[in-house]
């Protein structure tokens, strides 16, 4: 009984943490992975359909909501939706003004997109862990992991986008030479120490997106695992732990979206500055 339970519990957890993967399998060709081992064998040329689908759905929801509010925007007394949207926009605007030194019309909308998108994706976590996997299992879909931010691909993908922007603005503001000089001559301004500086600075540069993506992923993934573990309890005891954890996660969801956004702004601000 105990051993059997353990196997089912392990299976349950693994099942909930497996993405719906579509890719080229050496034996089966282009197919959906039916086990996590198959998904691993597909290698890099595979795609997580659930992560992509839910993240794009959340992004589209954000765009649709804010576009709707923007289209109806009046300078008079705002309605409910406009009020809420303006609150977020104003919050992001103030955040950008305080964290970003310089002038760049791209930063504030970028921050808004990051914040709202991550917030919406994280919020999916509040939905009980079994709802969607069960629903899709009935429809014949084996795996369904609905929170995109518990997939490192999603968080690192966004961090990669921010990283590209850091590189782009570093080169645009300082010039390719200026950027190279910054990498090679700081923190020690001596020609003999160029290799040392280079190693230091390149690691520093690469750590930015990695930290950004892994921080969000780590927080969300850990939270998700605990939700799944709580779901293993007897049904009458679940709410005892699930409710406090979910309430706590309202904070985590917002905080992680906020941290990702603020750090992106700070990194981009640093990219605009001459040393």
């Amino acid at each position: 009984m105990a051993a059997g339970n353990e196997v089912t519990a392990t299976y349950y957890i693994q099942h909930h943490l497996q993405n719906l993967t579509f890719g080229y399998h050496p034996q089966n060709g282009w197919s959906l992975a039916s086990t996590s081992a198959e998904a691993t064998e597909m290698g890099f040329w595979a795609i997580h359909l659930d992560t992509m689908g839910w993240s794009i759905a959340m992004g589209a929801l954000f765009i649709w909501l804010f576009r709707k509010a923007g289209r109806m925007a009046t300078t008079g007394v705002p309605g409910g939706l406009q009020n809420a949207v303006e609150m977020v926009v104003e919050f992001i605007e103030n955040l950008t003004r305080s964290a970003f030194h310089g002038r760049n019309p791209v930063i504030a909308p970028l921050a808004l997109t990051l914040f709202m998108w991550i917030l919406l994706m994280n919020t999916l976590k509040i939905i009980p862990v079994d709802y969607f996997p069960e629903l899709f299992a009935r429809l014949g879909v084996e795996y369904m992991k609905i929170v995109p931010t518990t997939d490192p691909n999603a968080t690192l993908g966004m961090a990669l986008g921010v990283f590209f922007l850091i590189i782009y603005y570093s080169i645009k503001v300082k010039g390719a030479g200026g950027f190279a000089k910054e990498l090679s001559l700081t923190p020690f301004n001596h020609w003999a120490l160029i290799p040392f500086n280079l190693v230091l600075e390149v690691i520093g540069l690469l750590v930015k997106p990695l930290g950004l993506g892994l921080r969000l992923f780590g927080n969300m993934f850990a939270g998700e695992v605990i939700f799944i573990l709580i779901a293993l309890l007897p049904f009458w005891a679940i709410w005892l732990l699930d409710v406090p954890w979910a309430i706590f996660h309202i904070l985590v969801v917002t905080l992680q979206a906020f941290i990702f956004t603020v750090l992106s702004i700070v990194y981009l601000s640093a990219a605009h500055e001459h040393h």
Partner: protein
Amino acid sequence: MNINMTLIGQTIAFAIFVWFCIKYVWPPISNALHERQKKIADGLDAASRASRDLELAQEKAEATLRDSKEQASQILEQAHKRSSQMIEEAREQARAEGERLVASARAEIEQEINRAKDELRAQVSTLAVTGAERVLEASIDEKAHRKLLDKLAAEL
């Protein structure tokens, strides 16, 4: 938990959403926000200006009221003076008129008296002639004595 194409897909989705936000989402909301801020600032400005205007207008109204009160009392005084003057004039005129009326009445009376005298005179002469005729019973040559009788009448 494998790193795969999803990474690239997510980066592309991210780029598209950011582009869309920059292009279509941010500007209208931001514009509405800033326009409203400007409108409110303008409104507050206008309100303070209006209160200043009101103060000015009150001051002006008070000054006008004071002026008009002064003018009214002046006019009243003048009217008083003028009315007493008019009464005086009317009295004077009435006296003069009365005097004139009395004088003209007197003249008329005189005239009347004279006319009555004349008439009386004429009648007396006729009466005298008739009387004389009766007395004398003789015919008096009217032609011969007419002159005489006229002279008599004139003497009366």
